[in-house]
């Protein structure tokens, strides 16, 4: 079984070259991508050049970096000097960022090889990757189903080809929910744990970059490199970065795990509930103490999230106006007409909807009733978690109320689509870490994800829960129908 950690070790000990691994990864991507449309761009040439560089440095006895030769991808809303940074939007078609995001720079400096950029719902707005301006990604477990979103490209790619690390972004569940639908592991770190410099902002106070991979171990491997204070992001925290890999070894015995009653409501699919409760039992068997907890303001999380994220988005997306970069309409009568046409042509329906909602909730006369109230509720939700974490070390619940749904089945009603976020948005509002990991499948064969939430900057604790579960079970090793191997057969 291939993992990023094993690839790293084998390149380091010389049993395989970085070039060989990169060739295999690129070939695997080329094989699965026509079915999945997980990658928007694949960087054959630059990836091989980087791999050769790693091999040269190894041959010369130089330190090629802690992730030397490890393949990675980034979601297309994260800037890189390679390729385009479009956020999956037509308004940024052809946009090449003049700078690399901090996360890409850090991984590349650690010797990792950027193999491509993955698909997403436009600007991260969506839960199915159907809102991509360049067409949807398909779920490798059933290509008639969505991979979830908005990091659907990353999750589908991770499910189809183990051993690659993917960076996604999570504003209301955009890493965890697609990981749940695709049967892979993904971490939304504590807000401020990872620099957002170079992440095309959707909702600045909620956005966080995090890893998507085949296992908690690979997530820990990636997090160790991308976490930490960045002088270019004032919201990145100056909190020491532990060695996440060695933290995993601490296990979970004696840790207290809370089960929030508000997260097991009727809207949760029965099979999802069963798989998640089985995961609870597995953890109990590892010495975890399980208790009931209450997060009383949970029902307000989704409307709070919709208001705050839309408000910030309406401002963040104002810069896409046809003046300085991105799409400009072919003809316009005057400045305002140029703005309207460029934005009208460039943005998709969901993005426009959220810009309108956000503009409305910030308007004078409505600000207090919507935005200000949402900010107050946000504090209550955060306090819910603070109280619960006085009682327990982590909280476990389903990642999504449902499993991967058929393409097109929720497109007609945005509220139906927003409903799949109800279990993930609280972590963003509370700025706490959350991990999703596969805990079995439904009778239809679709993966179910369990989510563990932790205290701020205890990302290592949620990683430990997922890792302990994965040392005990093999659900994360199950392979979907559409898949390809990196390892030599």
């Amino acid at each position, binding site marked *: 079984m291939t993992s990023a950690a094993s690839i790293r070790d084998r390149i380091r000990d010389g049993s395989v070259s970085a070039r060989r691994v990169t060739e295999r990864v690129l070939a695997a991507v080329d094989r699965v991508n026509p079915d999945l449309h997980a990658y928007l761009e694949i960087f054959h040439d630059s990836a091989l050049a980087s791999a050769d560089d790693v091999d040269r440095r190894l041959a010369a006895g130089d330190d090629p970096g802690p992730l030397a030769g490890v393949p990675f991808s980034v979601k297309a809303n994260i800037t890189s000097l390679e390729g385009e*940074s479009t956020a999956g939007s037509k308004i*940024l078609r052809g946009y090449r960022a003049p700078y690399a995001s901090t996360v890409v720079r850090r991984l590349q400096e650690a010797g990792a090889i950027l193999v491509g950029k993955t698909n997403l719902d436009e600007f991260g707005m969506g839960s199915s990757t159907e809102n991509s301006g360049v067409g949807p990604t398909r779920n490798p477990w059933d290509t008639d189903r969505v991979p979830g979103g908005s990091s659907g490209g990353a999750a589908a790619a991770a499910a189809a080809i183990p051993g690659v690390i993917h960076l996604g972004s999570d504003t209301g569940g955009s890493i965890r929910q697609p990981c749940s639908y695709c049967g892979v592991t993904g971490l939304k770190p504590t807000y401020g744990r990872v620099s957002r*410099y*170079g992440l095309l902002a959707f909702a600045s106070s909620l956005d966080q970059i995090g890893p998507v991979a085949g296992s908690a171990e690979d997530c820990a491997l990636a997090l160790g490199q991308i976490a930490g204070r960045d002088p270019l992001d004032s919201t990145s925290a100056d909190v020491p970065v532990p060695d996440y890999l060695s933290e995993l070894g601490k296990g979970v015995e004696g840790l207290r795990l809370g089960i929030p009653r508000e997260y097991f409501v009727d809207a949760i699919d029965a099979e999802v509930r069963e798989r998640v409760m089985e995961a609870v039992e597995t953890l109990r068997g590892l010495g975890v103490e399980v208790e009931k907890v209450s997060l009383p303001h949970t029902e307000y999380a989704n409307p709070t999230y919709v208001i705050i994220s839309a408000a910030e988005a309406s401002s963040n997306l104002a*810069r896409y106006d046809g003046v300085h970069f991105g799409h400009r309409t072919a003809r316009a009568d005057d400045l305002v007409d140029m703005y309207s046409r460029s934005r009208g042509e460039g943005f998709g329906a969901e993005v426009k909807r959220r810009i309108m909602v956000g503009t409305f909730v910030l308007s004078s006369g409505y600000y207090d009733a919507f935005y200000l109230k949402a900010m107050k509720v946000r504090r209550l939700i955060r306090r819910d978690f603070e109280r619960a974490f006085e009682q327990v070390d982590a909280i476990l619940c389903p990642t999504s109320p449902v499993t991967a749904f058929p393409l097109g089945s929720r497109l007609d009603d945005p509220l139906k689509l927003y409903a799949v976020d109800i279990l993930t948005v609280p972590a963003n509002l509370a700025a706490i870490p959350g991990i999703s990991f596969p805990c079995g499948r439904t009778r239809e064969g679709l993966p179910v994800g369990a989510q563990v939430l932790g205290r701020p900057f205890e990302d290592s604790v949620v990683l430990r829960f997922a890792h302990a579960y994965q040392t005990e079970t093999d659900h994360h090793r199950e392979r979907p129908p559409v898949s390809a191997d990196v390892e030599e057969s």
Partner: protein
Amino acid sequence: MGSRARPDWEPVIGLEVHVQLRTKSKMFCGCENRFGAPPNSLTCPVCLGHPGTLPVINETAISYAILAGLAFGCDIARYTKFDRKNYYYPDLPKNYQISQFDFPICSGGAVPLRSGDETRSIRLVRIHLEEDAGKNIHAEGRPESLVDLNRTGTPLLEIVSEPDIRTPAEAADYLRTLRMTMLYLGISDCNMEEGSLRCDCNVSIRPRGSDRLETRTEIKNINSFGFVASALDYEIARQIDVRESGGEIVQETRLFDPDRNETRSMRGKEEAHDYRYFPEPDLAPIRVAESQLDELRSRLPGLPWEVRQRFVEVHGLPEYDADVLSQRDPAVVPFFERCVELYAQPKKVSNWVINHVFQEMNERKVSLEVLGLSPDRLAELLGAVERNEVSAQNAREVLRKLLDADRPVADVIRELGVGMISDQGVVREAVQAALDANPSVVQDLRNGKKNARNFLVGQVMKATRGKANPSEVIAVIEELAGLE
């Protein structure tokens, strides 16, 4: 229209002044903060508003804003934050300006103005920090507009006064005091021509005796100190005309046209802006520590009105001298005081600085710093005059030479050949020659005509090229004319 408020109407004026801070780098990125570079050469992904970039606060700008607040006695916020002001314009690449809304860094305070013996304080509402926008350039004969983003992200203080100003002259005075204070603090150039100080005026009129605030207009586009008073003069007279002919003042923005010396309603009814302010999520709120305030307080220089008072009370200068010396250039203060330290006659130093040094600065169009005169050298020169080594008149010439190349005063006097004649024989010779050449004047002198003596002194001074000591010349004239 009359140019002054008629006695039955009282103008009510408040100013919103924008001051660019002279930090090395911009407000939220590392780009150089400088005027006059080629278009778009001082830019980076952050100030160009590229997707994914984030602002980082320039701590120096925060310190400068606090210094300004301390100078005017404002309350300095211990908790302050930035907000986004959302509006679309091509010179604002993010289409929002990072500004401050409900927690400005400074609130309250006042700017002390002085007229005659009276001090009047113009209260401040607030001082807040924000980023400047770029510039749109509408080039003649081109269909498109050009955008220069060098100015984008320049740290900007917005200083908002209460409507405490009552006359256009007072508005100009307020602005001059603001500017001088910024120069003393060393936080801005306040150059209106380069746009580093910009001013919007809010003005209304009310019947004298009323304390109501009436509908006001806002005048924009005042880009020179001289225009402030004339724009206000025009606008006040216009409002009086409107009111006296039974009309009502419309709340609107008006542009000042310096060519026609009038204000005009901005064309096209501007929609009422809803800026949709909300807290800037990319920047954490700022907490100002007491230790930081203490440190900044200790850096506070003497302020223009304090210096003025010191010049009067400590150095015994007339009010006029104190005003002129404290309002010219902050570098004058240490210059003057060092001079007085070495040559303890403050009024004489003041005369020289105001009459000669300032004139040289004006002629050369330079600041005191660029003029390059050291206070020690000026004191040396004044000492030479005092000791009759050079006449006051020739000392002027010595000063000019010193500005070309700094050397000991005695060397310059020698080089110019303007040293006082110390040889009694030379003076006697010159006096005798003057007496011989003007027998009728000598007769007048003997008859007690004062003018005759002055004429003869003048003749001797001319002959000696000003190098004779006048009192000595008088004594010799009287002696040789037999008047003792």
